[in-house]
């Protein structure tokens, strides 16, 4: 059974249909890349999965349970985390408070402290700035915080919306390493990326979204060699 399964999903903004019936699945332990041009509907898809948007039609199953109508906060409690587009850090709270909120669904104080240490280890800059209010961080620093905050919930599956956006080249490599580590530690990953090359390189499988529909899907390595993908998304 797939860990996350999306079936015939349709999503609207008012009267505008952004997602036109897509289906895909993410298996336990996989890294799945979701790629596509601007406005293809990647963000919309992730937001619908975590309950920020409501699906008009279709179903979303998480570990066999239908979560299409489950309120967002419950989905998070079930073990799903989301690094949202635009970072959405709590601007007036400190870095530390942001991270603590990341662990909102967890109870064990010791384990939370451990996770915090891990996040600080992955993102030393955050440790350095733990008392700075998040709103004054630089763009890239905020991106790190958003990522760290999501990891604080110790999710079983994590959805990431362009985690490498605004990061320096050296840190882009770093973040992909972190994603691999997260995956290696047993967390399933659904990754939306503009940096398709890097995303495909670490992904197991990938789906290509075009104007609200899935245009292509398959093994990540194979897609990397697919001519049309190369042309459209890899810039070669």
């Amino acid at each position, binding site marked *: 059974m797939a860990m996350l399964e999306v079936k015939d999903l349709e999503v609207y903004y008012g009267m505008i249909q952004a997602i036109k019936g897509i289906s895909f699945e993410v298996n336990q332990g996989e890294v799945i890349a979701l790629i596509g041009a601007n406005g293809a509907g990647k963000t919309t898809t992730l937001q619908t999965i975590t309950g920020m948007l409501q699906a008009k039609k279709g179903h979303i199953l998480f570990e066999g349970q239908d979560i299409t109508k489950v309120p967002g906060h419950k989905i998070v409690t079930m073990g799903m985390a989301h690094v949202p587009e635009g970072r959405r850090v709590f601007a007036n709270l400190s870095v530390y408070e942001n991270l603590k909120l990341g662990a909102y669904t967890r109870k064990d104080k010791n384990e939370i402290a451990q996770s915090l240490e891990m996040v600080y280890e992955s993102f030393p800059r955050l440790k350095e700035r733990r008392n700075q209010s998040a709103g004054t961080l630089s763009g890239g620093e905020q991106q790190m915080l958003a990522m760290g905050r999501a990891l604080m919930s110790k999710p079983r599956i994590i959805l990431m919306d362009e985690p490498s956006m605004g990061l320096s080249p050296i840190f882009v490599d770093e973040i992909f390493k972190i994603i691999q580590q997260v995956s290696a530690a047993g967390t399933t990953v659904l990754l939306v990326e503009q940096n398709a090359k890097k995303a495909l390189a670490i992904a197991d499988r990938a789906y290509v979204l075009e104007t*609200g529909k899935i245009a292509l899907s398959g093994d990540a390595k194979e897609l990397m060699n697919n001519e049309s993908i190369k042309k459209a998304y890899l810039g070669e």
Partner: protein
Amino acid sequence: MKKANLKSMNKQTKSMLITYAMVIAVFIIVEVMVSTGMMSSLMQGLLVPLCIYSIVAIGLNLCVGYLGELSLGHAGFMCVGAFSSAVFSKCMMATGMNETLRFILAILIGTVVAAIFGWLIGIPVLRLRGDYLAIVTLAFGEIIKNVINVMYLGKDSKGFHFSIKDSASLNMETDGQKIIDGAKGIVGTPNQSTFVVGIIIILISLFVCFNLVNSRTGRAIMAIRDNRIAAESVGINITKYKLMAFTISAAIAGAGGVLYAHNLSTLTALPANFGYNMSIMILVFVVLGGMGSFRGSIIAAVLLTMLPEVLRGLADYRMLIYAIVLIIMMLFNWAPKAIEWREKYSIKRMFGKKAKAEEVQ
């Protein structure tokens, strides 16, 4: 692409023309009904107040809908316009000045004085944002009301006398005439506000507002509303345009105040007419009618002013019903669910607007 651009121009112009047409049509219908005796005294008596609130709502909409600043002090500007013009009319009544001319001057004076107040208050206040601005405008409105309530102004053979203590301290000659008598306000202003004048001022206000928002100045004002930092970055003088919009908005409210002052024979600055409650009431018109929609403001002002009168049969329950209707209208107009529902079942959609949905992709 030229066409696209033309289309957008047309849309604004069309909305503008519809609004003018609506106002004029209502005017004609009302005039016909009055002359054929088909209109009740209540409705006839309501005509001028309806105009007053429409005008002030138009003014406030400029401030709230286009400038994006929440003012809870517009009743204060009404108050200033009302009192300044009433003082003028009262002083001139004895001189035998031509009545029409006197009234036109009164309107100008009320408008200008309100504009001056708007400008003066705007300078410090517009540095604040959001709810802080709201409370400060509310505070100014209350101060204006409070101060007017302790003002005593009299006129006798020796000229004007002024006091903020009591009318006895005016020390007037026996022939003296009290003009403003503290909390008792002004009594005996000429009743010159008519429906025609009201309609003319509505049309002028609409003309000013429509043309303003569809000009370079209006775009600058809206740019400030949408993104202050970006507006600054393209060289828009924030203070100047905020102040301009606020002042015009206050001036229009002042014009409404002039009509108010010349509608009844007594003018007092009470919490009910010039307090924050009135400011809020006008804000209700603006928000209910739709921020940015002058036509909506007029319609909401008319509906909500008439509602309690229409509900008179319900006796003391009417204000309760009024509150419930207000809440329901707000929910119906603004709740995302309700909006979705309306879009789904709107007649417009069913016939041919579907194409637009695809366009965005």
